[in-house]
């Protein structure tokens, strides 16, 4: 096995459970569209980072995504607009800003293509370590704060009546998603990242009867699709992110056909 494949394999083994975990609550909290918006804002962050000639524009993307996650939670808690609408406002503004900065002074859009498609085969050990740190952080967040995050998503008023600070929990979770999205974007690709945040849990939801099954199925789903997708892309010479997503989509179809309930 060539060195780059070993690295890619390691990266998939880290990214898949990370997104499998986050996916459970992204879907549970109706944040599918939000994670999509985050992906777009990450692109804007990279455009800004490139404009400022940062050595790794990824950090500008992470910072911007964190700011947006905070702003989004703040606005959502203070408006009667449906969260879909609020996300739409943020998403379109972020995309426009990104294209504005990317093309400022007549620049070409082409240099950003690698971010859109992503290339997991180019991942380096230092980045895998960083992604592993993110996975560890999310695992710790899950151990310490999963209950209030779940309660807030199931019934905000009930959670609040039991002393949960719903806004703070939402902010914590959206920030975790923001970091995971921006840091893994370069390898997974912006176009595919949202599918990794939605499909594993969407499939698991068709089958699961409780939170434990939901998590197990979502993580296994992501892991199996990650490995199968990586192998498929290696032998077929197609984009890894696209292959992983297609395998996930296939899993969703199976779970939909064999679903246990509505």
């Amino acid at each position: 096995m060539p060195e780059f494949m070993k690295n890619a394999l390691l990266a998939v083994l880290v990214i898949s459970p990370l997104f499998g975990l986050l996916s459970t609550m992204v879907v549970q909290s109706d944040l599918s569209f939000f994670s999509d918006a985050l992906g777009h804002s990450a692109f804007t962050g990279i455009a800004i980072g490139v404009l400022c000639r940062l050595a790794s524009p990824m950090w500008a993307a992470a910072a911007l995504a964190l700011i947006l996650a905070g702003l989004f939670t703040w606005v959502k808690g203070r408006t009667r607009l449906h969260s879909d609408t609020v996300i739409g406002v943020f998403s379109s503004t972020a995309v426009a800003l990104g294209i504005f900065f990317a093309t400022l002074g007549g620049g070409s859009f082409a240099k950003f293509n690698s971010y859109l498609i992503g290339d997991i085969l180019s991942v380096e050990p230092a980045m895998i370590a960083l992604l592993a740190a993110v996975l560890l952080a999310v695992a710790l967040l899950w151990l310490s704060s999963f209950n209030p995050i779940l309660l807030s998503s199931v019934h905000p008023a009930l959670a609040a009546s039991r002393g949960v600070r719903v806004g703070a929990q939402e902010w914590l979770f959206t920030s975790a998603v923001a970091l995971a999205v921006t840091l893994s974007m370069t390898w997974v690709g912006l176009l595919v990242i949202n599918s990794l945040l939605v499909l594993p849990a969407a499939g698991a939801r068709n089958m699961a009867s409780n939170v434990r099954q939901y998590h197990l199925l979502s993580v296994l789903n992501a892991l199996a699709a990650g490995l199968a997708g990586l192998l498929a892309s290696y032998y077929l010479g197609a984009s890894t992110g696209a292959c992983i997503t297609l395998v996930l989509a296939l899993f969703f179809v199976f779970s939909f056909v064999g679903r246990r309930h509505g």
Partner: protein
Amino acid sequence: MSENLHKHSGEGCKGACCLRVTDLGVSAEGRTILQGIDLHIHCGQIVALIGPNGAGKSTLFKAILGQQPHTGSIQFERSGGKRTRPLVGYVPQSPAFDQGEPVSVLDLFVAAISRWPVFLPIPKALRAKVEECLGRVHGEGLIDQRLGSLSGGELQRVLLALALEPLPHVLILDEPFSGVDVEGELRLLRLLDELRRTFDLSVLLSTHDFSNLGDYADKVVLMKETVLKVGTAQEVMDSPEFAQVFHLRLERG
């Protein structure tokens, strides 16, 4: 005996515990939502809060729950006269859950009453504890059901059981009869009656259904921004304040 225990004698709560709301006011964005609210609910009493939409019932609930900044005071007075902040159990309006919601009744309880992460296998002792909680509302069999698969009445019982853990001083139910059929309403009322006797709870509920207020409510409170009338169901519904608030034409002569 219980008559004596719950009898309201002047200012104090002699011999019984009570929830006392004094001169409560809430305003937001320069608008007055509640003002001069005085309420006095004895343990074991069921009090029905009525009033038109926008009368401030939900805001009052939020204030009692400690989620709404307010003026005035909300205190729980023990039989010895010691005053504390009340411990409140809250039963929200039954929400419609997504059919596919992968959250079971056990998951909801564990997330709400313990720090044990719900996504890990749940210890036997914790499961037994949840079964005990559900037993209070005769819902032991619901423990492994998904929230989305519960009927309206079952969901309400689950939320009620959750509100009783930890055992509160005051139980608040937000519109418990909306969307519930007559039979379901009677079943809930029987359960509330049983619970208030067993645990000596104060029960405060809001409702738009006046048909059998007199059968269960020890006291009815009519409010719109402030308390307009307090009394038995008959007293309140015969009052001019009631007619005015609900724009009823009084037949005269």
